């Protein structure tokens, strides 16, 4: 495959893996869970994105045809990563009840959903 592409691939690989590494480093370096949460959700996803892109280009180079699989994975990750982060955050808040005081007010009548019942239950169906 042509050297330019090869260079690109290598670059992407290196960059990607650096980001992956950074994400994990953040996991140990940062002080508390909420800030740790930032590291993997961002860095790792992007790092992985880089690696995926690399492999895409690589196979484009070797087999000539564009392999779009990797895009799919990236797509998956970009959809899921925020959800994961969201959930972990919620679970964390739930576990650390004392956080409740530090949180800013919602501004509306209801509190944060992790702690406060939304008023949906009222009109719900019977037990089955």
């Amino acid at each position, binding site marked *: 495959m042509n050297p330019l592409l090869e260079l690109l691939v290598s670059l992407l690989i290196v960059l990607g*893996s650096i980001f992956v590494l950074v994400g994990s480093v953040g996991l140990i370096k940062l002080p508390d869970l909420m800030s740790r*949460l930032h590291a993997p959700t961002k860095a790792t996803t992007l790092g992985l994105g880089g690696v995926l892109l690399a*492999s895409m280009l690589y196979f484009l180079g070797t087999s000539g045809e564009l392999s779009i699989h990797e895009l799919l994975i990236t797509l998956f990750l970009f959809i899921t990563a925020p959800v994961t982060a969201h959930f972990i955050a919620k679970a964390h808040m739930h576990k650390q009840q004392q956080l409740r005081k530090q949180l800013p007010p919602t501004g509306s009548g209801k509190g944060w959903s992790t702690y406060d019942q939304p008023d949906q239950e009222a009109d719900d169906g019977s037990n089955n």
Partner: protein
Amino acid sequence: MIHYALLFGFCAVCVSLLVNLWRVVLGPTLMDRVLAVDTMVINAIALIILVGIYQSTTIYFESALLFAMFGFISTVAFCRFVLRGDVIE
């Protein structure tokens, strides 16, 4: 050239995997462990992709895909367990 890049990649990913393990074992809180495991999955995917490039084969793609999907599911399941106890309600 790619070979060296890959080598670097392997090392980086492996180190981060070990780091994750470190988190899993140390914690301190439960959610830290969950987070670490989630990251571990993502890093594992990276590893698979690298291996794929290394062996220049695409058959590992599905594995990576499923890893991505199932990593998500299991993390969510863990969180739901912590949040609600009942995973499916």
